[in-house]
Every structure is written in C-alpha cells, then in structure tokens.
C-alpha cells in the first residue's frame, strides 16, 4: 500500500536515445567543433611553451604589481618559479591553455545570454532552471555524453568545463544590467538613446563591475574543472593529479595540487584587481 505504484517514466532512456541521435546525425558538426577546438588549444599551448619561462614570470609579476601591489607581484612570480621547479611547467601551460579557451568561450556565450535575460523576463524564466541544472548536476553525468561526441582528450574537457563554468557569468551579467540605477537608465533614455546605444554606452559599462565578479567566478570554476576534466582525457595538471592518485604518489600529487592552487590564487587576484580598477572609476559612491 505504501509503496510507489509501478509506474516507470523512462526519461533517462529518452535522453540516451536523443544523445545517440545527435551522435549519429550530427557527427560532422562535432568533428568540426573538435578540429577547431583542438587546433586552438594546441596553438595557445605552443605559444605559451614558446615563450621563455622568465618572460611569463615577468609578465605575471608586472600584472600583479599593476593590478594589486608589488608584494603580490613578487608572490605571483615566486609561485610561477615554484611551479617550474616542480617540473610541471608544460602541464601547467596546458592547463592554462584549456582554461583560457574555456573562459573565452564561456564569456562569448554567457555575456550575450545574460544580456538577453536582462531584457526578456520570459527568456530569463526559461533559462534559469537550465542554469541551476548546469551548476548542480554532478559533472560526471554530462561527461558521459560528451565523450560520445568527441574523442577522449582536451576537447570534451573543455565542453564540460564550459557547462560547469558558464552560469556565474550569465547570472551576474543579468544581475548587473538589471541593477543599473533606474535614473541612469531614464537619463540615457530621455536623451533619445537607441537600444544599442543604451546597451553599449550605458548598461554594459555600468554593469561591468558586477560582470567582472561573474567572470572571476567563471574563471575559478573553470580551474577547478581541470582535475575532473582529466577523467575524460584532458592533459595538464589534472592529469598529473589523476596519475598520482593511481600510483598513490603523494609527492607528485601534492606538487600538482599546489600548482593548481597557485594558479587559482594568481588568476583570482588578477581578475579581482581588474574588477577593483573598474569599480573605482565605474561606480559612484552614492
């Protein structure tokens, strides 16, 4: 009596069939995406590796100095040096390449979607549960279908990373635009601004500090996917971590792990520095 009646709604099966259908019929599309994505990663990776290590260290130091403080600059440079000394330079550059492309794509998708959500309540209502799903669905669940479409390697990792890292930039873009002071909007409107002028000249610049917080979040989440992504064959630091787990190699695990933490600190401080800089010229103290 108290048991659930014997009704089975096989949503899982439908999803599986849908994935099969996509893989069968849109193989060419996924091949195309794969070619572009893998070429891009390789290009970025090659470029990073072609750059001398000390040049990267100096750039990071200067950025840290400019965006935060000289002390932070020194600290970031030391982190970079440490990573090199762990013999993890190439892996780190691969991870950076994966993160860069994931973040760039996330922003390219996320910012327009966020803008549309800010303008259309209906669109926002439709997208929002999707974002919730992207953030809460266990990563492995969508890693499985992704490897249906692409060969194991960096590309499925990037797709998974984008899915995971996309929501913050979308949400905060929407929030940023919606929260622009109503008098500021009115004043732009009463000068006869067109919708595009309003967006480009007023709404986006005003929303930028909030959007920067979203971009920061997206970057950090992309980084945290570096390890998970290596389960579907992504190279880089994640691969080292996975490798050390298999071998129960504590020293390699720690070095690879702490390298990820170093990267995280550097990226977080730098993007935050950009956000602060925008904040100081971009918001009135009311």
């Amino acid at each position, binding site marked *: 009596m108290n048991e659930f009646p014997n009704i089975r709604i096989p949503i899982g099966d439908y999803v599986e069939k849908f994935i099969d259908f996509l893989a069968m019929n849109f193989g060419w599309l996924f091949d195309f995406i794969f070619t572009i994505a893998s070429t891009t990663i390789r290009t970025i990776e090659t470029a990073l590796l072609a750059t001398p290590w000390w040049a990267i260290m100096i750039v990071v130091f200067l950025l840290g100095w400019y965006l935060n403080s000289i002390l932070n600059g020194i600290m970031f440079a030391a982190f970079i040096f440490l990573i090199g000394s762990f013999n993890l330079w190439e892996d780190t550059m691969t991870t950076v390449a994966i993160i860069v492309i994931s973040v760039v794509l996330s922003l390219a998708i996320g910012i327009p979607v966020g803008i549309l959500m800010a303008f259309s309540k209906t669109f926002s209502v439709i997208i929002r549960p999707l974002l919730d799903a992207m953030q809460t669905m266990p990563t492995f669940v969508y890693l499985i279908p992704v490897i249906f479409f692409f060969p194991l390697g960096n590309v499925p990792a990037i797709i998974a990373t984008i899915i995971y890292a996309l929501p913050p930039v979308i949400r905060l873009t929407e929030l940023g635009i919606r929260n622009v*002071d109503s*008098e*500021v909007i*009115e*004043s*732009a*409107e*009463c*000068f*006869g*601004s*067109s919708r595009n*002028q309003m967006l480009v*000249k*007023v709404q986006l*610049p*005003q929303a*930028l500090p909030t959007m920067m917080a979203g971009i920061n979040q997206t970057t950090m989440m992309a980084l945290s996917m570096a390890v998970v992504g290596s389960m579907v064959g992504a190279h880089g630091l994640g691969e080292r971590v996975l490798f050390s787990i298999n071998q129960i190699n504590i020293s390699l695990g720690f070095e690879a792990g702490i390298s990820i933490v170093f990267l995280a600190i550097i990226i977080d401080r730098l993007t935050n520095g950009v956000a602060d800089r925008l904040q100081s*010229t*971009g*918001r*009135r*103290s009311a």
Partner: protein
Amino acid sequence: MTVKIKVENVTKIFGPRPKKVIPMIEKGASKRDILEKTGHTVGVYNANMEIMEGETFVIMGLSGSGKSTLIRCFNLLNKPTSGAIYVDGENIVNYNKEQLKFFRQKKVAMVFQHFGLFSHRTVIENIEYGLEIRGLSKSERRDIAQKHINTVGLKGYENQYPDELSGGMRQRVGIARALTNDPDILLMDEPFSALDPLIRREMQMELLDIQTRLQKTIIFITHDVNEAFRIGDRVAVMKDGHVEQIGTPEELLETPANDYIIDFTREIDRSKVLQAMNIMSKPLSVMNGKDGLHVAIKNMEEHGISSVFITNRERQLLGLVTIDGAIEGVKKKKTLEEVMTTDVLTANPEEYVQDIIPRVLVSKYPLVVVDETNRIEGIILRVHVLSSIISHSADDEEEGDEILGPSVETVEITE
C-alpha cells in the same frame, strides 16, 4: 506669449490593464480604493494645463501626488494612459519611435533628483552624451560641452568622475548635460531636493540666472513651497494625482482654491512673494494739479482724508498736498504748486513687500506705487503691508478684503 505645451486630460495609471480602471475613476473612486480593488496605481488623473514659452512652470506636491509621474509624461518616459500633450501644436503622445527619438534628442532634456549621471564617464563625457547620441564628431561635441561647462561653473572639473564631486557639483553636471542639447524644454525633477539648504539656495539663484539668459521653457518639480514660489512664474499644486490649482504664486496666496492650497502655502514667507501691486489699493485721493487748491480741499473733505496726491493729466505723480497746507495756501493766496510737497516715497509695482517695509515705516504719507513713467498705479498704507503678511485662513478672508478695500478714505494721515 505663445503656448509651448498644452496638456489635455492626461491620465496615467500604472498596472497591467490601465484602461480598465478609467471608468472607476470617473465614478469618483479614490486612489486608495482603486489600488485595493484592482492593484492599479493612479499616477495622474485628468491633468490640464498650458505652459507658455519661456516660462518657469513649477509643479508642486507632496510625495505620491503624481508630480514626478506627470513630468515624465512630457518626454514620454511615461506614456499617458489617455489624453494628449501638445508641444508646439504636435501631439507627442502619438509620436512613433523615430519622431520620439528626434523629440528627445532635440527638444527636451531632463535633470534628475539624484542626478542620473553616468558614473563610468568623466564630467565632460557626461555632458557631451546627448551630442554623442546624435552622432556629432568628437571635436564638435567637445566644443559645445566645454561652453556649457563654463556656463554652470565647472571649469577645471572636466576630467573628474562624478563620484569625485560634491552633490551641488554633480547637479551642475546634470544641468550642463541637459543644456548641451540646447532643448526648448527643460524638465527638472526635484533637481535640488538632494542638496543641502545653502547649496540649494545657491543653485536656485543660478538657475534663475541661467533662465534669464537662455529663456528656456522650464518645468520644475518640487515639494518645497518656498522653492516653488521663488523660482516659479506659475505654480501647479497636485494632490493624489489631481491638479488642485494652477496660478502665479500671488494668486495661490491671495485666492487659494481650497483648504489644501491654504495648508500648503501657510509656511510661506508672504512678504517675499507678494509684490507692491498685489497689496496696493486704488488711489482715491488723487487729483489733477490744474484743478487748484479749492478743489483739493473739497476733495479731502468729501473723502474725509487729510492729504491728496497731485498728478498731471497723464496721471504722473507730481507731489502731495496736505489739508493744512491747502488751507494755509488759500489764506495766503498761494498756488497749489507752492504748497505742494514733493517729498513722497514711491515703490514700483514689482517690488516685493519685504523690500517696501522700511519705506512704509519712515514715510509720513502713503507710499505711492508708480510705473516706469511715474504714473500712479496705487497706494500702499501701513495697514496694507501688515495685512498682507498675515496669512489668509478660510474664515478671515472676507475681513481681509475689507481692510484692503476702500479703506483709504477713512484713514487719517497725520503729519
């Protein structure tokens, strides 16, 4: 003067189905009833007004009276639910997108209570925003913007950001930004309410100054009666979305339409609003100098007064003859001109009562109100001044009229 803006039966209701609510209001349902029953907010109901070219028209009311809603109808930030607004004869409510854009870019500009500045732009970039929207080249708009920066006294602040400025300075940016578009109509939504009193006073003066130079049609919103009366040529008082009365500050003081207006104007310093012409009375004791001393004496006896003003045929003031002077003159066979004193204090019709008071106090005779050509327009007695600065209340209004009326005849004037 031509009519610049004509507002005809404008109603603005906020909510999902505003048109449905109109019949309810027509039946006389109150704002609160409508909100409770339908969830609609009545912003403005059936507003009618004509605003003249070059006029500073103030809309005054407490918060929630619909004044901000109404001013936003003038540039269609709020589209009226019903009614028409004619600007230069064109009904702007029917404008399509392109026409509206043109109208906003060229004809009307707005200044906001909290300034509405773009915090990501420097002062000069804020000021040239309107020109940028219109597609002017950078050098052109810099030139125009610079001119207006000088107008409002912001020279030297061009490259600062709004959050680096004080409130008063920010609002100067707001005003300069509005003026830069060279609009015919300037909408000002409580522009000085967020400023502290000293700065507010200063800004009001500067606005009056700018207005004398530029002669815009200004619609100015405020909740402050003193501000309204200081800068308004005419004032409309709103309450719960209705326009209660429209008139000059003097009219609102002298002939308030209802108790609400009386309440509103109670705090006003009347001596700063009322002018000589508002309180003077008809000069009954005036005679043509040609008529001679006998006529003067007869005139004074008839009216029971002790002095009479002498004019020429054009009613220009020549002087004053007292009863004692006249009788002495008749005895000594002098002419009227010989006994006439020219030691008479005058005021011009536009002078404010507060500025007249010292003269009224020292003058032995009534103060004569004369126009530029020295023609007599009226006279002012001490009692006029006193009664003018005591506020009207509903019950003593008639009494007040009596005092202001033909009392001149019975007033004794001593030497």
